[in-house]
């Protein structure tokens, strides 16, 4: 029951990011809006994950220049938790394993932390189980999966589904999906896309879709596309560019670009 449908914004201004003393992103400027899907493409090593981590506030990814603004508020120096609290979410390309912590216990902790911050009552074990089960069904997940240790020994597809499960439960304002499609089969991609559509009906989430594959793009039909190469933006466009990339396939598209 969203009462305010106001557009929220996330702006990246001239972002320079360094990892272990080496500059990886060389001045990236991007605007994201809630309700939109913005695809970010680019060959391996072009800096997509670096951008995702820098937006989320990973301490290893140092912003040496530029700004990140959330609804006009400068969040460049915010901690990862503060960004999560504002509603930023990263679906990790390689989520960290935490042994001995079950998905259900971890998610109850995460949900209740959010509820407490928002002045809502904490969910009981039973209510949180019900909620978890409902979302797991949306993602075609076996409910027994909740008793597994967080990301420990998960297959590629299981990791990605578990990331999406967290997205559905935490309902962020902006979700960065870092290659959520890789590791998933066609049915997996469909299930994840369906879940995202359902989530976006509840609340107008902004999606930052990092992918190399056309398939996921087709399912989520982006409003905007940005192509990164060597830490710089080399192409940007709206639905038409997205269509062109989808039709030609990303690799062929990149080849054509570099031949020009």
């Amino acid at each position, binding site marked *: 029951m969203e009462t305010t449908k106001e557009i929220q914004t996330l702006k990246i201004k001239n972002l320079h990011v360094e990892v272990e003393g080496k500059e990886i992103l060389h001045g990236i400027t991007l605007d994201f809006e809630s309700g939109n899907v913005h695809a970010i493409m680019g060959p391996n090593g072009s800096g997509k994950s670096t951008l995702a981590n820098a937006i989320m506030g990973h301490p290893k990814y140092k912003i040496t220049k530029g700004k990140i603004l959330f609804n006009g508020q400068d969040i460049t120096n915010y901690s990862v*938790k503060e960004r999560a609290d504002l509603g930023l979410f990263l679906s*990790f390309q390689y989520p*960290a394993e*935490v042994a*001995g912590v079950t998905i259900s216990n971890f998610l109850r902790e*995460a949900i209740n932390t*959010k509820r407490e911050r928002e002045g809502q009552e904490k969910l009981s074990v039973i209510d949180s189980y019900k909620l978890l089960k409902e979302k797991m069904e949306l993602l075609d997940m076996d409910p027994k999966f909740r008793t597994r240790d967080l990301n420990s020994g998960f297959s590629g597809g299981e990791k990605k589904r578990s990331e999406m499960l967290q997205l559905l439960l935490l309902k962020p304002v902006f979700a960065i999906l870092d290659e959520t499609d890789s590791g998933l089969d066609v049915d997996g991609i469909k299930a994840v896309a369906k879940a995202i559509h359902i989530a976006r009906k509840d609340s107008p989430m902004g999606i930052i879709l990092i992918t190399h594959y056309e398939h996921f793009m087709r399912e989520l039909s982006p409003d905007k596309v940005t192509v990164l190469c060597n830490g710089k933006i080399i192409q940007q466009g709206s639905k038409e560019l997205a269509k062109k990339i989808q039709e030609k396939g990303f690799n062929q598209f990149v080849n054509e670009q570099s031949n020009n």
Partner: protein
Amino acid sequence: MSNSSNKKSKGKEHKSKTINVDINRDIYDTADDHSPKFIANPGINEQIVRLISNTKQEPEWMLNIRLKAFKLFQKTAIPTWGPDLSELDLNKIIYFIDPNATETNSWDQVPDEIKETFEKLGIPEAEKKALAGVGAQYDSGMVYHNLQKKLKDQGVIFENMDVAIHKYPDLVKKHFMTSCIPVNDHKFVMLHAAVWSGGTFIYIPKNIKVDLPLQAYFRMNGKQGGQFEHTLIIVDEGAELHYIEGCSSPRYQQSSLHAGCVEIFVKEGATMRYTSIENWSRNVYNLNTKRALVNRNAKMIWTNGNMGSQKTMLYPCSILIGENAHSESLGIAFAGNEQDQDTGSKVIHAASNTTSIIKAKSISKDGGISSYRGLVKVTPNAKNIKSNVQCDALLLDDKSVSKTFPAMSINSPTSRVGHEASVSKVSEEQLFYLQSRGLSEEQAIKVIVGGFISPIVKALPLEYAIELNKLIELEVEGM
């Protein structure tokens, strides 16, 4: 205690659960006003030893054990192979405090101050809910004691050790510091034998299976107090028992010493599970000796949680003396700032086809030192024994230390003994991942630590699992 306000606000996070678990360190670390009937002068001499025995109107044989032990104690040096004990001044310890209360089996008759302490700890509720009997030791004397009628009718004995000497002299005399932990075992066993006071005596008759855990809560009070309780448990043939001991104490400036002894006899085909959560305050030296003699087809399961104390030396030991005997030892230790937790487990395979498992987990934080010190020994006559040792350490920061001393002494070629050890650090990636889901850094560390210890915590009954988790969380918060 400069951070007490900080402490309070954090304490609030723990209000959700019930029974015995809603624990704030404030509760533990406050001494109450209870004035003891008798406090001995600091230091130990023959007069004090005699006085203890006299006050308890002990039989001659017990006084003789004490005096013999005291002589041995005087001649024996403090062990130097473990944590540094050079700051422990044995002349500043008070060796006997008699609480201003006589034992009772009704909660209503327990003096208010003591009752308040125990009520804060949740003992009566816990008893009503889940426990078959509760014995609580307040300093050196038992003040509260109860056992469900059904167990009494079955011949189960759950008694204060001081009383047991008079009521069951033959059973006690036969087992007390004879074949399990002999008086001359080591310096602190000698001291213990000389000044021991209170503790628990349990006898489970043949084939009686006690289906609910029995619990005793020990609490040390009184400045510079030493606590030397003696626990003697006999689980007769085919019987089963789960005994749980929880410890906490108020905090004081000067060193306090805890040197308890636990002797367990697991007779043929019997099963004994001994669970203890020891949460002494920061100034306590916890130098404890726990040992079980495990007979044919019998099982001994140790679960130990050690935290709080300044220095701990504790290595629960199973001596497998009958064929097919089995021992399991699960341990969790937490060492924070200026703490040295030297724990582990020993197994002596003295009969064929015996098996043992040791799993030890330690957590170190703020420069704390956790050591695993263990021994697996196989005597030459023991064939086909199997033993597996696994110790894992988790370091919460770069200042903290983990050490491993896994001694093996295997004199039998048919033995299969495995040992694995791991040291891990809370990784930046794990912290980032968990915080990206809205957890604070502290919450994230708690989640990681909780996961690390969960294989051991899962083996505990629910209330204790929750209690241990809460205690570890409080340690993570750093008091």
